[in-house]
């Protein structure tokens, strides 16, 4: 289980390969890469304002961020029979098309790998202390949290 918060970009293929390297029991690696969209702002401020995002700055809470990501990965390991988890989240200034986050999960079977990967992304979106500030021609603007993200994370709550 490995979590990184870093300014540097990552190589998704190398990270995915590392999860099964030297092993013969991994049958499935599910992964997710999140990227900066230029059209994000348009969606937030309504049809009238379509200012494209020119850049995005990711702020985080050093120390707590790593702990939160470790806790999310540990929770996934408790719920599913998975062999390895890799989470990389970038911080600092990013441009449209840049990679923001990688989540990759290795398991024997695809069902568990997919479920754990989606679970980690959903929880990361609501529990890990990162904040995005978008720059458009109109200035900078902190991104509002999405209700749909709370909803997505809520799917995994146990009764």
């Amino acid at each position, binding site marked *: 289980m490995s979590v990184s918060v870093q300014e540097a970009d990552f190589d998704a293929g190398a990270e995915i390969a590392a999860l099964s390297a030297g092993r013969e029991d991994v049958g499935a690696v599910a992964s997710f890469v999140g990227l900066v969209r230029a059209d994000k702002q348009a969606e937030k401020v309504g049809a009238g304002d379509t200012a494209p995002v020119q850049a995005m700055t990711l702020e985080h809470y050093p120390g*707590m961020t790593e702990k939160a990501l470790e806790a999310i990965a540990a929770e996934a390991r408790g719920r599913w029979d998975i062999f390895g988890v890799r989470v990389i989240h970038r911080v600092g200034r990013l441009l449209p098309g840049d990679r923001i986050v990688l989540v990759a999960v290795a398991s024997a079977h695809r069902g568990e790998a997919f479920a754990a990967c989606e679970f980690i992304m959903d929880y990361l979106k609501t529990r890990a*202390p990162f*904040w995005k500030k978008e720059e458009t021609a109109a200035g900078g603007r902190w991104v509002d949290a999405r209700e749909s993200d709370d909803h997505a994370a809520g799917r995994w709550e146990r009764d």
Partner: protein
Amino acid sequence: MTVSNVLCFFLPMNVKILFFAGLREALGTASESLALPAGVVTVGALRDQLAARGEPWVALANMKNLRVAVNQQMVGLDAPLKAGDEVAFFPPVTGG
């Protein structure tokens, strides 16, 4: 009495307070160290104490969906607070 004895006595009375993202910008500060006032025993009471400073601190009271972490764990406003804690106030997170 040595200096180190004095420090041992006084420092634990402080809480470290952190602010992030839009809240950090609104308050114009990222962190402060504060002697925990008598009677302030919850995160909510600390929030109220800070907000009572007036502008721009009232943002802490006015902000919808204010999130709080104590010692890097997300908690509710009713969470207990003690000297030596690290308290962080921030808006809902938007990473990923």
